């Protein structure tokens, strides 16, 4: 059934139902029941409203009005009849809309399908299967938008990014501001948030590398050598050409860390040979050229072996 034919059916139904609803209200037909004054006076306006809604093709609204009238006059059979007739019409029209909608859906005509399924739901708002059918169309719509965005993000790797999303742009701007204000931790966090979406943007990679380098320098001064070295490595990861992170900076940090572990090893050698070996090995990990650490490691290992033999 086409949408045009469906509209014809609706018009016919309006004529029939309006004719029924427009019959003059017969006071004598009212059953002998106790009805309050306010209930009596309420009848005509609701009835007018129900009739008007029917004429306009607003059947769901008309049904509510008939149901209110049936509530006010539970013993008046006419209102029950109106309720039943309107419900029957609604069920028929909703099924027709659904059929047209499903057919359009099969043909891939989403616009028509959407309109017809919505029309069916407007008539029968509690039909869960209609809601699900509409949801499938909606899923397709939002998914197409999301896929297009992801596709755009994938193509921005390792080149200057244009058309950046509002949210990401703001993270980048905030990161830049924090860098200028000397909040390098905050700068790293915000620029990383930008890079999460645009991992190849050279400008952002350079900025985050500089922020890591600045953090490393601060931590070196505070004696936080491990953190400083980790940040130097991060700075190099984002920008291998970072001028502030030349090989000497990293070598100096590694040498300082090696010295620190060497000293710890010396202190441990007197009481805990196992720990001393660990410390000297760490020192060599950071600086394989640390001759003193190499000698002391050999010495500690010899002593350890001797003690084990005595123990046997």
């Amino acid at each position, binding site marked *: 059934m086409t949408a045009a034919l469906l509209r014809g059916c609706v018009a016919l139904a309006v004529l029939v139902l309006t004719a029924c609803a427009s019959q003059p209200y017969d006071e004598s037909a009212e059953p002998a029941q106790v009805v309050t004054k306010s209930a009596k006076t309420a009848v005509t306006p609701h009835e007018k409203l129900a009739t008007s809604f029917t004429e306009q093709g607003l059947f769901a609204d008309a049904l509510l009005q008939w149901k209110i009238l049936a509530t006010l006059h539970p013993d008046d059979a006419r209102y029950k009849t109106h309720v039943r007739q309107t419900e029957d019409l609604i069920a028929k029209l909703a099924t027709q809309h659904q059929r047209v909608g499903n057919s359009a859906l099969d043909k891939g005509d989403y616009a028509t399908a959407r309109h017809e399924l919505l029309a069916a739901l407007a008539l029968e708002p509690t039909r869960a299967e209609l809601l699900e059918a509409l949801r499938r169309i909606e899923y397709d719509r939002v998914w197409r938008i*999301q896929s297009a965005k992801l596709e755009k993000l994938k193509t921005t790797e390792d080149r200057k990014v244009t058309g950046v999303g509002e949210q990401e742009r703001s993270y980048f701007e905030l990161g830049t501001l924090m860098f200028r204000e000397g909040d390098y931790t905050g700068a790293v966090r915000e620029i990383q948030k930008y890079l999460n979406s645009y991992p190849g943007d050279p400008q952002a990679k350079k900025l985050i590398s500089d922020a890591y380098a600045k953090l490393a320098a601060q931590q070196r001064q505070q004696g936080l050598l491990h953190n400083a070295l980790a940040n130097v490595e991060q700075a190099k990861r984002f920008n291998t050409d970072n001028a502030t992170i030349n090989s000497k900076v990293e070598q100096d940090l590694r040498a300082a860390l090696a010295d620190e572990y060497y000293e710890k090893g010396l202190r441990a050698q007197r009481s805990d040979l196992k720990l001393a070996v660990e410390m000297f090995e760490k020192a060599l990990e950071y600086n394989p050229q640390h001759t003193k650490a190499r000698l002391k490691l050999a010495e500690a290992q010899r002593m350890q072996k001797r003690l084990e033999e005595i123990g046997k």
Partner: protein
Amino acid sequence: MRNALALSVALVLCACATPAPSGRAKPGPESVVHRSNDFIVLTAAKGDTPAALARRHLGDAAKAWVIEDFNNVREFTPGQEVVIPLGTPNPAGIYANGYQTVPILCYHRFGGDKSKMVVTPDDFARQMEYLAQHDYRVVRMSDLIEFLQGKRALPKRAVVVTMDDGYKSAYQHAFPTLRRFGFPATIFVYSEYVGAREGLTWKEMQEMVASGLVDIQPHSKTHSNLGFAQPGEDDAAYQQRIQAEIQVPLRDISKNLNIPVHTFAYPYGDTNKDVIDQLKQRDYRLAVTVQPGSNAAFAYPYMLQRSMVFGDEDLDTFAKQLGAFQDVDLR
């Protein structure tokens, strides 16, 4: 057209009103005219308010909006006819002249230095005042779960307020305003930012949750983009990252706040089928993007649209994001 219809209903209902006879001033069951499975129709007595009638007849004063929306009035005059729907005649909010949509607003930071992503406390207060003055009803994110299943109606002009990332400014600036208006909001936090210099602490979140207004929900572990694998990340590592980004905040929120977790906010609004599959496995019920727009009852629950509220926009622009009804002639 919908407004005209509502107005005509209101006019008719007002015309029905008859003055309350003397001696019927006290509110109570004596004002009930009739009851059916579908409706209660009664005559309002002196002192009857939508909340009082909702408490008496629907068992919950918070359902006052059901009576207000059906009768298209916010208060009653004695003698006025009031129709109380007993069921949920239109849970999806779909009518012959269009359908209900629920806008979800997305804020980030609040503060004095106004910028795109920073809304000033004054602007936020003005925006909340706008909602209150224009009959918007701020509902909870979790209210959308049943609305999207077609099981629960929401008030006309329902709107959801959310805030991303978990900035401390949400506690300092937004929370007092939410309290002033009694508006609920959902804050999406990412685990690694909790306790950071400008990040919310668990204690602050506990206080806000205890108010009954604020809900805390996950926004990932590290705020990485879940929509695609990072350079050099193989599929196994990528899947593992998605899992951690979804699971860790769920665990953290459950442990520190002891509240149910139901909605995930994708960092940058980006997602894909793998991410959605993992959310479903972890029993998340909803997830939000940053695709601008409002959500009908048939929206896909794992890709709900949200409109970002920017600090450099005026009140008119804010108002344009509050689309709560989509006009379509469906007759």
